[in-house]
C-alpha cells in the first residue's frame, strides 16, 4: 500500500499557511503529493486535526550518558515496564526509556524525527547503536565542540578555516549533524574540577574565553554553510542570576547573517532556555527573567530557541555540563554519575524531583511556559523538555495543554503549595495568551524543521516533502470543555505516517518503517595542517588509534541519509 489519502481533516500546515481548513492530504511512494489514484487507501480524518509529523529538536535519547542513566536507575523502571506485545518489543523507563520504548512513544505522539542533543565524538559508535535500535523515527546526533582541544587551540588563534576543516572531518567520521556547544570551556575546566561561569572566564591552560569559542564556532558554522546553526547550552546554567550570562551569549550572534542553502535564517539556537532565564541572587529571591530573554530574542531574528519546559515529575538530569551536575548533587545529595571524555567533553547525571510543593520548582515550571507565551514568533520558539532534564518527552501533550489553556495553567498554579511565589516571582499569573493549534504546529513542526535546515524535507505537508503525517483525535471546531482532553488527544494519534508508511493506527504501533540516520557530509578544501594535527593528537594523546576512532561501519548506520554540503569554494 503506497498510496493513501487522508480525507476531510482539519489541516494545520505553516509551510503552506493552512490554518485549520478542511483539506485532503495525499501520500504516494513516501512523499506528499498533489493527488492519488482511486485505489489509494482512504484514511477518514473527519473531525480530526492533521499536521506534519513533529520534529524533536533537542532530547537526550541515545548515547553513553543516557545509558548510564538507565544502568544506574533500576528504580526508574520498577513496576512500570511494558510487555512484548505483537510487534512491539518490551519497554521500560519513566524518565529514561529504553530505545524501543523511545521510538514507540515518540511515534505514538506523532513525532517522526528526533535529534540526539549531544554526542561525545569518541562514543559515536555507541550513539549510533542506540539510534539504530530506536524504531520508526528518523534521528540525527549533534557532536559536541565547545570543549574540544582542537577547537580551543584553533580558535585561540582565530583560525576559522582550520576550525571549519576540523568540524567537517568530525561530522564525517562520527556521522554527526550539527555543531553543538555545551558550557563552552567550562567542561574542559571541569576536568580539573573548575568551571567557566561567565563568557569571559578563561579556560585553564588553553587560555581562551567562552565568548571566543562561541564566536569562532558561529563563524566556522557559517563558513561551512551547515544546515543547522550553532546549537548552544550557555555557561552558568541553572544558577540564580544566570540570565545575564545568557544575554552575553546571545549578543555574540549580533550582526552575523546566516549563510547556507537550506533556508535556515538563524546563526544561533539557544536550547532549553528555561534553565537559562533565572534572576535573583539565591534560591530565596529566585525569579523569572523570561521577559528579558524573550524581549532580546523577539528583537533579534537571527536566533531561535527551545523552551525546556519543566513538567513537575521525578526525572533524571543529564548533560555535558559536568560541573553543573556536580553542583546539583551538592544540592539534592542524590546519586551522581560523571563521565569526562578525553580531549572532547564531559557529562554528568543526577536524578531530580520537580515537586509541586517546592517553590523553586513551581517557578521553573512557570518560566518555561512564560518563554513560550512571550515569544512573538512561533517559528523561532520550539517546545521541548530537554528530555529528560526538565521532564520526560512523553509529557509533551501536557505541555501543549498548559500552553493552549489558561484554565489548565490556573488549575496547576492553584495546586502549588507556594502559589504566592509563582505569582510574585514570575509573570505567568497575568498571562492569558492561549497558543493556537496553528502555533503549536509552528512550534513543534515547521519551526524546528526550518531551524535544522530540513524545511524541504519535513515539518510540513507541501507536495514533495516526506510523507510524515500525524492525525489527532482532536476536533478544532469543538470548544474545549476539559483541557485534559487536549493532553489525551495529543498523547495517542489516530494515525501516523512516516515516510509514507503507516506506523501508528489508533495509538498502536503497526509498522516499524525504515528509520534513517541523518548526517551532514561537508566537503572542504584539503587542509594538510589539520590532518597532521589530527594524526598527532591520536598518536600522542587519545587512548585509541585514529583508524579505530574513524571506524563507523555499515552495521552502525544501516540506513543513512546524507545531507551534502559543498564548502570548497568559500573564502574566509
Amino acid at each position, binding site marked *: 500500500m503506497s498510496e493513501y489519502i487522508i480525507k476531510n481533516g482539519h489541516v494545520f500546515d505553516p509551510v503552506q499557511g493552512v490554518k485549520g481548513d478542511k483539506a485532503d492530504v495525499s501520500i504516494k511512494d513516501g512523499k506528499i503529493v498533489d493527488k492519488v489514484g482511486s485505489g489509494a487507501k482512504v484514511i477518514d480524518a473527519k473531525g480530526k486535526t492533521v499536521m506534519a509529523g513533529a520534529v524533536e529538536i533537542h532530547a537526550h535519547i541515545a548515547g553513553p550518558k543516557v545509558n548510564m542513566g538507565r544502568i*544506574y*536507575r*533500576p*528504580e*526508574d523502571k*520498577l513496576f512500570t515496564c511494558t510487555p512484548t506485545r505483537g510487534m512491539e518489543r518490551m519497554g521500560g523507563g519513566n524518565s529514561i526509556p529504553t530505545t524501543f520504548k523511545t521510538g514507540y512513544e515518540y511515534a505514538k505522539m506523532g513525532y517522526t524525527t528526533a535529534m540526539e542533543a549531544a554526542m561525545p565524538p569518541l562514543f559515536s559508535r555507541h550513539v549510533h547503536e542506540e539510534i539504530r535500535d530506536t524504531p520508526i523515527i528518523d534521528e540525527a546526533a549533534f557532536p559536541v565542540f565547545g570543549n574540544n582541544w582542537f577547537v580551543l587551540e584553533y580558535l585561540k588563534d582565530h583560525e576559522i578555516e582550520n576550525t571549519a576543516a576540523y568540524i567537517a572531518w568530525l561530522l564525517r567520521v562520527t556521522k554527526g549533524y550539527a555543531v553543538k556547544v555545551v558550557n563552552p570551556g567550562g567542561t574542559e575546566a571541569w576536568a580539573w574540577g573548575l568551571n567557566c561561569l561567565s563568557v569571559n572566564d578563561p579556560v585553564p591552560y588553553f587560555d581562551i574565553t567562552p565568548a571566543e569559542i562561541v564566536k569562532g564556532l558561529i563563524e566556522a558554522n557559517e563558513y561551512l554553510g551547515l544546515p543547522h546553526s550553532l546549537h548552544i547550552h550557555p555557561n552558568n546554567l541553572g544558577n540564580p542570576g544566570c540570565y545575564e550570562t545568557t544575554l552575553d551569549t546571545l549578543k555574540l550572534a549580533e550582526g552575523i547573517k546566516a549563510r547556507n542553502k537550506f533556508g535556515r535564517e538563524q546563526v544561533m539556537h539557544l536550547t532549553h532556555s528555561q534553565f537559562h532565564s533565572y534572576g535573583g541572587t539565591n534560591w530565596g529571591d529566585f525569579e523569572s527573567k523570561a521577559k528579558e530573554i524573550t524581549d532580546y530574542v523577539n528583537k533579534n531574528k537571527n536566533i531561535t530557541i527551545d523552551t525546556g519546559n519543566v513538567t513537575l515529575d521525578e526525572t533524571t538530569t543529564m548533560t555535558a555540563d559536568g560541573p553543573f551536575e556536580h553542583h546539583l548533587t551538592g544540592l539534592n*545529595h*542524590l*546519586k551522581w554519575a560523571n563521565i569526562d571524555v578525553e580531549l572532547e567533553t564531559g557529562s554528568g547525571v543526577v536524578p531530580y524531583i520537580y515537586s509541586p510543593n517546592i517553590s523553586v520548582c513551581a517557578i521553573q515550571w512557570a518560566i518555561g511556559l512564560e518563554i513560550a507565551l512571550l515569544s512573538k514568533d512561533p517559528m523561532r520558539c520550539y517546545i521541548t523538555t530537554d528530555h529528560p532534564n526538565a521532564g520526560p518527552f512523553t509529557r509533551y501533550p501536557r505541555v501543549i495543554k498548559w500552553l493552549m489553556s489558561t484554565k489548565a495553567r490556573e488549575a496547576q498554579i492553584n495546586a502549588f503549595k507556594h502559589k504566592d511565589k509563582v505569582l510574585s516571582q514570575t509573570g505567568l499569573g497575568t498571562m492569558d495568551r492561549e497558543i493556537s493549534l496553528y502555533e503549536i504546529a509552528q512550534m513543534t513542526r515547521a519551526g524546528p524543521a526550518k531551524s535544522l535546515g530540513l524545511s524541504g524535507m519535513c515539518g510540513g505537508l507541501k507536495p514533495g516533502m516526506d510523507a510524515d503525517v500525524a492525525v489527532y483525535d482532536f476536533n478544532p471546531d469543538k470548544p474545549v470543555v476539559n483541557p485534559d482532553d487536549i493532553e489525551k488527544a495529543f498523547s495517542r494519534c489516530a494515525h501516523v505516517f512516516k515516510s509514507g508508511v503507516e506506523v501508528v493506527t489508533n495509538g498502536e504501533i503497526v509498522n516499524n518503517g525504515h528509520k534513517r540516520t541523518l548526517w551532514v557530509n561537508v566537503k572542504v578544501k584539503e587542509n594538510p595542517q589539520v590532518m597532521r594535527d589530527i594524526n598527532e593528537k591520536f598518536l600522542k594523546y587519545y587512548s585509541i588509534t585514529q583508524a579505530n576512532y574513524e571506524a563507523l561501519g555499515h552495521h552502525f548506520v544501516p540506513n543513512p541519509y546524507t545531507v551534502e554540503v559543498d564548502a570548497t569554494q568559500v573564502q574566509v
Partner: protein
Amino acid sequence: METVTITMKNPPALYLEADNVSPDTFAGKTAAQIGDLSVHEGNTTSTLGKYFEISGNAGASAADTKIVIKGDVKKVKYLGFKMSAGEVAVEGSTDQYAGAWMTGGKMQVKGNVDAFAGIAMKGGELSIEGNAGNYLGAAYRGDWRGMSGGRILVKGDAGSDIGMYMTGGEMIINGNVDVHVCTHAEGGKVIIKGNAKTKVGGQMVDGTIFVFGTIDVMMPGFKPAGEVEMEVDGVKGKFAHYIGDTGERHKKKKGQVVYANLYKKI
C-alpha cells in the same frame, strides 16, 4: 473479618510467584474467584487454584480479609506483596519478598523468610517467628527511599543488609544479624537483641541502632560519645553511645550537626 485459607496441594517444579496473594487482591472475591487469580511459574501463567486448595470467601475490603496459608510454601515468592490492610498468616516458612512493599495490615510468618522480606515497607506490621534472610526492610535496588514506616519483628536471626536506606519505621531482631546494618540509613530505628558482626551503621546519615549483644568490629566512622542509661523495648540497661558516620554528610538542626546514633549495651 472473613478468612480465606489456601493450602499448597500441588508444589511447583520451579518456584511460584504469588503476587496476587494479598488481602487487597482477594478482597471482594469468592473462593472460586480467588482460585482463578493468576500465579506464575517461570514464564508460564496458571491459576492459584491449580496449586492451592482454597476455602472461604474474602471480606468486602482488604481490611476485612484474613488469609491463612498452609502447606509447603518454601518455594513461593511475593506472599503479602503490596498489602495495605487485613491479615496474612503463613503457617510455615516461605521464600523471597514476603510482605514486600507493604503499606499496612499485619503479616505473620510462623517459620523463616528468605531475602527481600518487607522491602520498601511503608506501614503495617510484619512478624517472623523464625529467621529472616538478607535485605530485610531494605530499599529496592537504586532507590534512596527505603523502609519508611511500619514495624518488622523477627524472633530468630536476620541476614545481611537489613534496613539499607531506611528512612523510618522500626525493626526488632531478637537473634543475631549478619554484616551491613542500616547502611545509608537516614532515619528509623533498629534493635538487635543478639550479636552483630561488622559494618554496622556504615554511611548512616541519621537513624538509631541498638545492639544488645556484641559487635565484632566497629566502623571507624562511629566515635564514642559517652554512656547512657536507657530502657529499650522493655529492657533497662547501660549503653555505650556512638555517633556517626563521621565520614558521611549530615544535616544541621539549630546549628548542631545531627548524627546517627548507635547504642551498644554494656
